[in-house]
């Protein structure tokens, strides 16, 4: 490394970026420091004096450069400029920056906005927006898609919104992600006619690339099964957004998610193909064609860091042979990193960047150790040796990337070593044949379809293996919170293990045991514990428009009142509640309380039940005229979940008591409609009381006031029907007189929940309003004496 100054430069530059991100220093202060350092270092440079002082001046200078480049390119764009989180009925004008490949039910594209109109006022505002155009009429949508060209000036009418931030603990911060890629916000439109092309100017080069991507993608659709086409789109065009959540999770469980991203591995396969095809050519021509081909592939895939990294490394290999320079993998890795970081310092925090570089680094450092070990072993069989060597490459990559995979995917795959052994060669065939089929389609469709058919076989094998291995219940361990601290500890252990040159096995195995312990035990030591033992925690989950309230009773029983909505695009059960359960280390829902059969209350339960995550269901009496109610009960029965109906009753859980206030025997109750029959749940924990009323409206409230009067009094009320005008009558509020009023509603929802006069009513009686549409998830904790609000964002 001594002979490669760039490696040191890159490390220091990255360090500067890290410092700028994690330590709060004013950038102007650094700027003032940098100026004299720059002068000093140039003096040092020309004096050619390489003492400790001059070296530290250089080091400081490079760190400052990294710091400044990060600060001055970081937060300049990607900020959402509006006050309102959601602005309906807006019109946006701008230029098409890029269009994503065809989605199933929408078109996604980036607009470089120049102005926005809302309420007949036009604002000039810059920024890049991610637009999505939905239409139920797919053929109309398809027409629009075919017609769009990059560089077009367009007008789009729809709803502008901010990307979803972390609304619940442990949730993916979509807004932060958008910001990191320079996107300010979202705009959604729901009719093809809402998108108009005002000027069909085109940007030639990006448009050619887009047309080519589109064309290749459509060829895949013609030649392959749907899942095959989506896989190849991910493998060759680096777009895996249409691969559904469950399939992706199975790849994660099997530890082979890395193949779904276009990785350095693919570039390796592509170089092999090039070398084969151009093999007999003159060396200059061969090298020029290979470099051109790689650059083309980088552009075609939209340059994910892994592809960029691998291509830069290959190109540097060629350049160093050509200009008789020394090729050193670490050096070329550093060059690739430096280029990426200089273009965008944010890349350092891009999972793709981190995974790709950590994988290569650990292969370079760790694999040689494995190799000498295997070479010196008593093994004689060449085949077994080669399989072991191959497995150790994969193991080395996994060791290096482990902290990142745990941080982003929260799963430690146990079977990944075996899965990779099969999946990596398979992917090689699939990528190779995939490329061959594309080239052939432009020559002979028939021949292409022959190749595609054989490739389809490999794809089917891949899916069968991944579905099987990823579906195994023991395929992975769940590591909910893997922090930066855990990461540092892990890397320190690994470095000691591989840098200390001792032949003694005892200390080595001790270190390995420590490292494993670190992942499984220590990683959970510094975890944030939101739920306290022996206390009652009411956790109102932000499920958008709908209800979802998780309760841990003092005896540890987990209850869930409602589970939010579930649509084809977003299932709260699997996408909000399940990850939250994992974050909170909850294995199962002991009791699921379904308030009533409105989709924004019960729909999320369906996937939870399907995945055997609910032990028991309590729901309103079945309404045999309601198809969804019958279907829901069938689902419960199918999965053998015991269930019962709300009725005037109570039971005890630890030192908390639960009452159901549904007077099913009351003649008036029978006449109520579905909302009014919502399960009314009162929880008493020592001096603290909680009341949950689902979507109960005026009639139900009247009945409750009549039947329960003083018993309704509660410290906390889950406000009926998301704060709609149909509920929260004055008489009812007087009886309950809550200190806290919980409202679960979607941001700027179309029902205008909660109604302003209802909010006024609560404020009038002195209740503090806690709203998910404003604060995201809300956590209240009761020790039986007082109720505390927990600020989960700052724990």
């Amino acid at each position, binding site marked *: 490394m001594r002979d490669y100054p760039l490696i040191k430069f890159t490390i220091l530059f990255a360090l500067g970026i890290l410092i700028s991100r994690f330590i709060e220093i004013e950038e102007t202060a650094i700027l003032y420091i940098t100026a004299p350092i720059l002068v000093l270092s140039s003096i040092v440079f020309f004096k050619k004096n390489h003492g400790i002082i001059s070296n530290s001046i250089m080091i400081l200078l490079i760190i400052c450069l990294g710091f400044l480049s990060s600060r001055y390119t970081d937060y300049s764009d990607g900020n959402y400029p509006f006050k309102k989180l959601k602005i309906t009925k807006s019109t946006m004008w701008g230029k098409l920056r890029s269009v994503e490949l065809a989605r199933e039910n929408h078109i996604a594209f980036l607009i470089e906005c120049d102005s926005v109109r809302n309420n007949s006022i036009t604002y000039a505002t810059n920024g890049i927006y991610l637009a999505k155009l939905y239409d139920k009429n797919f053929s109309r949508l398809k027409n629009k898609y075919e017609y769009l060209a990059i560089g077009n000036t367009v007008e789009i009418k729809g709803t502008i919104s901010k990307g979803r931030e972390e609304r619940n603990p442990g949730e993916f911060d979509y807004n932060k992600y958008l910001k990191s890629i320079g996107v300010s916000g979202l705009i959604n439109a729901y009719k093809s006619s809402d998108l108009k092309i005002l000027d069909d100017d085109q940007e030639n080069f990006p448009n050619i690339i887009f047309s080519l991507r589109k064309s290749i993608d459509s060829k895949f659709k013609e030649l392959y099964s749907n899942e095959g086409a989506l896989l190849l789109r991910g493998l060759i065009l680096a777009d895996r957004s249409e691969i559904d959540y469950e399939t992706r999770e199975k790849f994660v469980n099997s530890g082979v998610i890395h193949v779904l991203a276009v990785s350095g591995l693919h570039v390796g396969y592509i170089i092999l193909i090039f070398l084969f095809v151009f093999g*007999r050519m003159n060396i200059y021509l061969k090298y020029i064609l290979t470099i051109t081909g790689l650059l083309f592939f980088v552009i075609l895939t939209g340059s994910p860091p892994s592809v960029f990294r691998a291509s830069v490394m290959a190109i540097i290999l060629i350049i*160093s042979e050509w200009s*008789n320079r*020394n090729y050193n993998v670490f050096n070329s890795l550093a060059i690739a990193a430096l280029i990426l970081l200089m273009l965008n310092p944010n890349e350092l925090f891009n999972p793709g960047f981190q995974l790709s570089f950590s994988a290569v680094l650990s292969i370079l450092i760790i694999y040689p150790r494995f190799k000498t070990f295997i070479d010196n072993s008593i093994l004689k069989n060449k085949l077994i040796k080669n399989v072991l060597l191959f497995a150790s490459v994969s193991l080395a990559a996994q060791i290096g990337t482990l902290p990142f995979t745990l941080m982003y995917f929260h799963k430690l795959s146990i079977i990944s070593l075996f899965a990779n052994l099969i999946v990596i060669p398979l992917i090689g065939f699939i990528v190779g044949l995939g490329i061959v089929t594309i080239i052939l389609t432009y020559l002979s469709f028939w021949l292409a379809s022959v190749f595609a058919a054989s490739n389809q076989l490999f794809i089917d094998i891949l899916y069968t293996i991944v579905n099987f291995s990823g579906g195994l219940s023991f395929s992975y361990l769940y590591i909910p919170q893997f922090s930066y601290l855990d990461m540092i500890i892990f890397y320190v252990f690994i470095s000691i293990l591989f840098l200390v040159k001792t032949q003694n096995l005892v200390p080595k195995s001790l270190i390995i045991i420590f490292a494993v312990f670190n992942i499984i035990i220590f990683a959970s030591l510094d975890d944030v514990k939101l739920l306290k033992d022996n206390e009652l925690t009411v956790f109102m989950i932000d499920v958008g428009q709908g209800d979802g309230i998780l309760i841990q009773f003092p005896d540890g029983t987990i209850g869930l009142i409602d589970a939010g909505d579930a649509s084809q695009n977003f299932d709260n059960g699997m996408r909000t509640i399940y990850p939250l359960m994992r974050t909170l280390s909850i294995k199962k829902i002991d009791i699921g309380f379904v308030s009533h059969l409105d989709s924004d209350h019960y729909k999320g339960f369906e996937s939870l039940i399907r995945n055997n995550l609910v032990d028991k269901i309590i729901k309103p009496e079945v309404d045999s005229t309601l198809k969804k109610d019958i279907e829901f009960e069938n689902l419960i029965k199918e999965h053998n979940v015991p269930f019962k109906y709300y009725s005037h009753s109570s039971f005890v859980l630890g030192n908390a008591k639960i009452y159901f206030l549904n007077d099913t025997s009351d003649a008036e109750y029978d006449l109520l409609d579905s909302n009014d029959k919502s399960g009314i749940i009162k929880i008493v924990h020592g001096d603290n009381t909680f009341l949950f009323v689902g979507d109960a409206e005026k009639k139900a409230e009247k009945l409750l006031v009549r039947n329960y009067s003083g018993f309704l009094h509660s410290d906390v009320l889950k406000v009926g029907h998301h704060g709609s005008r149909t509920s929260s009558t004055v008489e009812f509020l007087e009886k309950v007189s809550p200190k806290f009023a919980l409202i679960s509603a979607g941001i700027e929802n179309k029902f205008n929940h909660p109604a302003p006069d209802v909010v006024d009513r609560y404020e009038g009686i002195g209740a503090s309003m806690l709203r998910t549409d404003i604060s995201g998830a809300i956590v209240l904790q009761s020790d039986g004496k007082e109720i505390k609000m927990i600020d989960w964002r700052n724990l």
Partner: protein
Amino acid sequence: MRFHPNIIFDFFIPRSCPSCKTRLAPNENYICKLCLNEINNVPKNLLDEEYNKSFKSEKIIDDIFSLFLFDEDSPIRNLIHELKYNRKFMYGKFLGKLIAKEITKTKPNWKFDGIFAVPLHPSKKVTRGYNQSDFIVKGISSVLNIPIYSKYLKRKRATPSQTNLNVMERKRNVANAFSVKKNIKLNEKSFIIVDDIITTGATISEAASKLKEMGAQTIYAVSAALTSFDTTFSREHLNQE
């Protein structure tokens, strides 16, 4: 210190001397000055001796020139190793230029109409990626301005490596390995033929004989390095016993 673009390029991808592995100074090319000075040029008497021993009797090669002696621990060994096995093909051009300069100095009476490289068999060329002698030829041709004829000379047979063979075996090994394209006229012309290393001269003589069959009048054999066969052979011999 004058500014040299290599200051920047070397920061990104450094260069080092193929022999002593130290970093090259920005104004040094290919090999460091120290190592370059250490390489022994072939003395004139040794060159004549070699010619008399290996080429004179056959009367195919009319004169030879070789730049360096391929000694056991000579830097030239590393240089040619990089050229042949580490894909540093540009070293070929470098050697070619050095050769050309020496030829103009020491062989002023040579007259030539074209230059050939001893070809590799296509299968070998594919695995190595290039023919190292082609690059030496390019270097020579760029200095002396001689047209390159290499494409007219082909290797039709993939012959095993000469390394572990004795003189007779070597001759047999390369017999009829080359062919010349029929449609060129070499009549009454003089040519240089280039190989990276000359050991017994068997290969280069065989190739040259084909050129003579096609009517070439004079053939000069040129190589970057000359290795005395006796030393290599006797060493191999000792190892076997």
